[in-house]
């Protein structure tokens, strides 16, 4: 099915099942420990051997010698695979660095081998016996130091009007630089895979957000035809972008299994993950805003510098600045430096998350310069069209509504505009806010739907559920379309034998994947109607029956002994080009800062979101509160500390890389505006999982400023950066 005209009314609009806060259908499995993750497939693979990964101990250079003799002779060892015996390997099209390094080393903890043994303990012990000799080379590890060598990239670059002239002429100007650090996904389930060969075909039970990307890149790396590779990933213990791509666990499980001649499972040890896998790259961002005295933006410029390995990608931190606020003269630019740190890549809301951390502090600073309330300043500069292409409007844009409702519900009017004046005992308190913005992406997505002789529906798609609620919203979609109770729908996900879906990334999953299920269900409805002798257009599907006129047939009867099967792919036309599709929101935060120690406590958080139809308010709300929590981490604690001499992230475990815990997070409020967006898909939904993260960090930074009068422009906002600027303690 091709979606190239805005959706009219369709069966989803009935909202008998879709749109309700239904408990996740995978909940009983997950809460009892019966959901099998990649390393736990005792149900499908008997007696696997264990692979333990060895990581490079240098950031850049060459392996001059590897002595694996002691490891091979160690008790229980079945195989040792390194670049010397792995055979010729390709490189995945989504990978920047090779997943099995050697002799050249591209980054610290790049995998250089796997030791396979009968037990985990034996494999780990033997891996420590491998002796590696390196010739270390100098590398570039400090973004600030190589900033001037960064090359300009075309991506995200834009110029509208005369930015430099308008900025110079603006009566009120802001020119500030902000930095965001390298961050780690730190999902709870380490990257893990179990691989088993059958002849020259391999099946890998793994933990991957994008099944078809993974199949394609594993086949490419192993030099196999794609049909010889099967990936299965029904449960994924968190991803956040860190499991978008084929990673070393899957490749080394496959190589280890081939070498050992039996199934092998590999999990990345937690301390290996942060340097071995991808991370969100650090940025340096310069923002310039010029305004009239009454608060209208006349010039807005956003430039960002980031680094990556040769052949890598920039962090697109300026994208939202093209679309979020009005202004006739505009500039965005990205510059990319070569760094020999581990591979930078997508982490939840790539681009917008770090971009808004900077832009929304700048807006707060500018509002203060103007003497205008920060909420009002944003409302003044709203735009209903793409400011760079004014003939192109937003499909739906309710930013102003999000701002006004959030301000009202949060008690924004009680904020003291003068910072550092609200004191309650030992606590300085402050309020902060930020706009939230994230583009709505759509991706082609396929599904297969079966109706059996009992009138039960089964949906199969390689879509993944990474905690997002895919199982549940897909079941809701099929139940609505076919007119059966939710209990009569079974959803099977994450297997490359199923139709290729949108996968989970870029907050495109929910809208795109359910649209694919919608397309397959439309075909199934046609097949059922035909079988029952109805015109498809007249047929009504409800309560397990198909009806037309005064005749009705049960779905079970229509399916017959053999059942009916339909498969389709939802493909998206050019509506995303003709309209700007984005999601909007506002974040409001109250903080308390210890007047003596500078310790920050988050007291209250509210997000208001306008993101199209909310398919399941319960799981959608969870996406948003989870993103708000990640935003607290980004604001207050998360930073991969770079060793600039040796080129690696020092705090590479969950003790050193701090993420929010229970005690850091208060009760969180989320409001969804009542919205449908018929331009996004027949579901009229948009993404929400990343929107919730966009802007949170700046709202917290602005609240800390309001509480203390200390403006911090370098994340994370740790107390060493403002302790000497706290108000005098009376």
């Amino acid at each position, binding site marked *: 099915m091709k979606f190239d005209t805005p959706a009219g009314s369709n069966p989803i609009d009935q909202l008998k099942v879709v749109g309700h806060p239904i*408990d*996740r*259908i*995978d*909940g*009983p*499995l*997950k*809460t*009892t*420990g*019966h*959901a*099998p*993750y990649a*390393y736990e497939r*005792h*149900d*499908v693979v008997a007696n696997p051997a264990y692979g333990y990964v060895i990581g490079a101990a240098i950031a850049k250079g060459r392996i001059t010698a590897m002595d694996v003799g002691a490891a091979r002779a160690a008790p229980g060892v079945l195989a040792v695979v390194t670049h010397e015996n792995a055979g010729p390997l390709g490189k995945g099209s989504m990978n920047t660095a090779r997943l099995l390094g050697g002799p050249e080393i591209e980054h610290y903890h790049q995998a250089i081998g796997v030791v396979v043994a009968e*037990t*985990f*303990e034996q494999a780990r012990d033997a891996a420590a016996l491998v002796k590696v000799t390196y010739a270390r080379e100098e590398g570039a590890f400090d973004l600030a130091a190589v900033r001037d060598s960064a090359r300009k990239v075309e991506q995200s670059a834009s110029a509208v009007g005369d930015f430099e002239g308008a900025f110079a002429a603006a009566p009120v100007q802001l020119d500030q630089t902000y930095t965001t650090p390298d961050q780690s*996904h*730190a*999902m*709870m*389930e*380490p990257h893990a895979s179990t691989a088993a060969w059958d002849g020259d075909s391999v099946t890998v039970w793994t933990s991957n957000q994008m099944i078809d990307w993974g199949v394609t890149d594993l086949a490419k790396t192993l030099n196999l035809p794609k049909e010889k590779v099967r990936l*299965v990933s*029904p449960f994924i*213990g*968190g991803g956040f972008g860190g499991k978008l791509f084929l990673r070393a666990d899957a490749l080394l499980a496959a190589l280890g299994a081939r070498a050992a001649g039996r199934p092998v499972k590999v*999990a990345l040890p*937690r301390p290996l993950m942060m340097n071995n896998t991808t991370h969100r790259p650090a940025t340096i961002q310069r923002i310039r805003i010029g305004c009239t005295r009454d608060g209208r933006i006349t010039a807005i410029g956003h430039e960002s510098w980031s680094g990556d390995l040769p052949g890598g990608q920039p962090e697109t931190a300026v994208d939202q600045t093209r679309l979020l606020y009005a202004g006739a003269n505009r500039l965005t630019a990205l510059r990319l430096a070569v760094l020999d740190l581990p591979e930078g890549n997508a982490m939840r809301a790539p681009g917008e998350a770090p971009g808004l951390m900077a832009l929304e502090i700048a807006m707060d600073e500018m509002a203060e310069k103007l003497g205008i309330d920060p909420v009002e300043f944003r409302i003044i500069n709203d735009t209903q069209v793409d400011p760079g292409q004014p003939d192109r409007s937003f499909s739906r844009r309710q930013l102003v509504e999000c701002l006004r409702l959030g301000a009202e519900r949060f008690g924004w009017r009680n904020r003291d505009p003068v910072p550092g004046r609200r004191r309650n005992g030992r606590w300085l308190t402050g309020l902060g806010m930020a706009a939230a913005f994230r583009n709505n992406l759509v991706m082609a997505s396929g599904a297969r739907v079966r109706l059996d002789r009992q009138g039960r529906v*089964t*949906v*199969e798609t390689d879509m993944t559920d990474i*905690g997002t609620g895919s199982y549940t919203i897909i*079941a809701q979609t099929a139940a609505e379309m076919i007119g059966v109770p939710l*209990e009569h729908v*079974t*959803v*099977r*996900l994450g297997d490359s034998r199923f139709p290729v879906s949108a996968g989970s990334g870029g907050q495109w999953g929910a809208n795109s994947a359910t649209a694919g299920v919608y397309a397959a269900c439309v075909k199934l409805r046609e097949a059922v109607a035909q079988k029952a002798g109805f015109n498809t257009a007249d047929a009504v599907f409800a309560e397990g029956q198909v009806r037309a006129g005064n005749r009705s047939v049960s779905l079970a009867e229509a399916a017959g002994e053999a059942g009916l099967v339909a498969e389709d792919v939802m493909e998206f036309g050019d509506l995303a080009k003709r309209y700007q599709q984005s999601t909007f929101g506002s974040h409001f935060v109250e903080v308390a800062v210890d007047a003596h120690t500078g310790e920050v406590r988050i007291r209250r958080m509210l997000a208001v979101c306008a993101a199209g139809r909310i398919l399941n308010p319960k*799981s959608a709300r*969870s*996406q948003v*509160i989870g993103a708000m929590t*990640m935003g607290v981490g980004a604001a207050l604690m998360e930073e991969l500390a770079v060793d600039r001499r040796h080129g690696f992230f020092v705090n590479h*475990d*969950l*003790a050193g890389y701090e*993420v929010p*815990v*229970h*005690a850091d*997070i*208060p*009760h*969180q409020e989320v409001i969804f505006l009542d919205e449908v967006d018929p331009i996004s898909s027949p579901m009229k939904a948009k993404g929400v999982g990343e929107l919730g993260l966009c802007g949170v960090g700046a709202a917290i930074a602005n609240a800390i400023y309001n509480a203390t009068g200390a403006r911090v422009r370098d994340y994370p906002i740790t107390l060493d950066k403002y302790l000497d600027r706290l108000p005098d303690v009376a």
Partner: protein
Amino acid sequence: MEAGIGTAVGTAVTTLAGPVAAQAISRESTGLTVRLKVNGTEHDLALDPRTTLLDALREHLHLTGSKKGCDHGQCGACTALVNGRRINSCLTLAVMHAGDEVTTIEGLGTPEKLHPMQAAFVKHDGYQCGYCTPGQICSAVAVLQEIEAGIPSYVTEDLTAAPQRTEAELRERMSGNICRCGAYSNIVEAITEVAGRPA
């Protein structure tokens, strides 16, 4: 049939796709023998003495509800109950637990018959990816017992009075269980409901 996820619990726990072979605990050739009592059942295992309690549960008894998130006591995903008290099962060796009563998430309830804490997590959506969830639930069950037993925490204001089931107490006591999906707000609501206070 091959299983998928349906709301009908019975279908959801049938076998999964692919070749299923008989289980064999076959790695204990050189090990120390230990008798573990897990979820009320005694198991005689011969284990490599380096085997953690977590790996004994996951790899030898195939009780994979206890999760390995870090293997270093940093995340809490491996939380299980030993003699009624919660423990990071990755930080203790299996051979140290002869004769102990170990309770894992599988021993609290089943998909067909959820423990009240498991049911509350489902109701309040106190999880997303599900990987930290068994540890959160085991911890939550133990936290309420610790408060009941009068054990104070860092945030207990009056060490001579009985600690209360306040949200501050719950958040403090649950802080060893990381949830990167960020379900904390919902988890506290779930625990609060089980604790008998209004959510």
